[in-house]
């Protein structure tokens, strides 16, 4: 998965399981502290934390939870924080629609995915019906 950007020089900082609503808060706070830990600026810390919060809620709402991997390392020669959120949910039926502002199948406003994409430097998503969804967010330091 994500062969273009996966790099064996990345180091794993953390791995977390999302099951409950409380995990959304707990994990987004962890993201913040890792972003701080690699000396990311305050606005970028807020951007990546908020983007991850959106993905966590999607996993909680649509996929019954999932897993989050936090890594750091070079991406295109620059130091980055790499967050990978994966679930074994139903997959996203219409990915193109889901990535556009205002599309929701739930009660949201449909800004989660496109908004998260705007908040990071690189956004990759893979989804397969009945298999699940994996989203990778990359934010340069």
């Amino acid at each position, binding site marked *: 998965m994500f062969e273009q950007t996966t790099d064996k020089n990345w180091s794993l900082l953390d791995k977390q399981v999302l099951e409950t609503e409380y995990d*959304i*808060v707990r994990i987004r706070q962890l993201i913040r502290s890792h972003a701080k830990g690699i000396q990311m600026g*305050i606005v970028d810390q*807020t951007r990546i934390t908020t983007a991850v919060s*959106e993905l966590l809620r999607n996993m909680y709402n649509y996929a019954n939870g999932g897993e989050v991997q936090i890594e750091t390392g070079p991406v295109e020669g620059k130091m980055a924080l790499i967050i990978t959120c994966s679930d074994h949910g139903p997959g996203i039926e219409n990915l193109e629609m889901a990535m556009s502002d205002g599309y929701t199948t739930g009660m949201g406003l449909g800004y989660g995915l496109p908004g998260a994409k*705007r908040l990071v430097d690189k956004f990759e998503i893979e989804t397969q019906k009945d298999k699940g969804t994996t989203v990778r967010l990359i934010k340069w330091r």
Partner: protein
Amino acid sequence: MNTDLQEKRIPIIKIRDFLIVSIQVDMHDRLAIKLQSQILEEIAKTGAKGVLIDISVLEMVDSFIGRMLSGMATMASIMDAAVVIVGMQPAVAITLVELGLDMPGVDTALNMEKGMEMLEKRMRDQQVEDF
């Protein structure tokens, strides 16, 4: 920032015609919903004309919390009360805009004092209209 995730109640204080709420925790979704209904109940009970919500310690506002705040402002205005969000951190404001969330009906102020002035001015203007 308080990281205690157990159930907690966010205090709502009434001063004269206004309610003052200071959010001191990173809220999980159910707590945000609970706070929204508590504030609306308090408006109904006290007839408050304005609500000041201090979010200066909040390090992030995502679409859920943003929606809770704007939804509350809309409902409060139906009850003839104005909502002012106080002390939003610059990084939070930038992120909200980039996320694509505009919060219709939500007024913001730099600090409590400015927020209070906004509400008082609004009340004066309304009294003139009523007269």
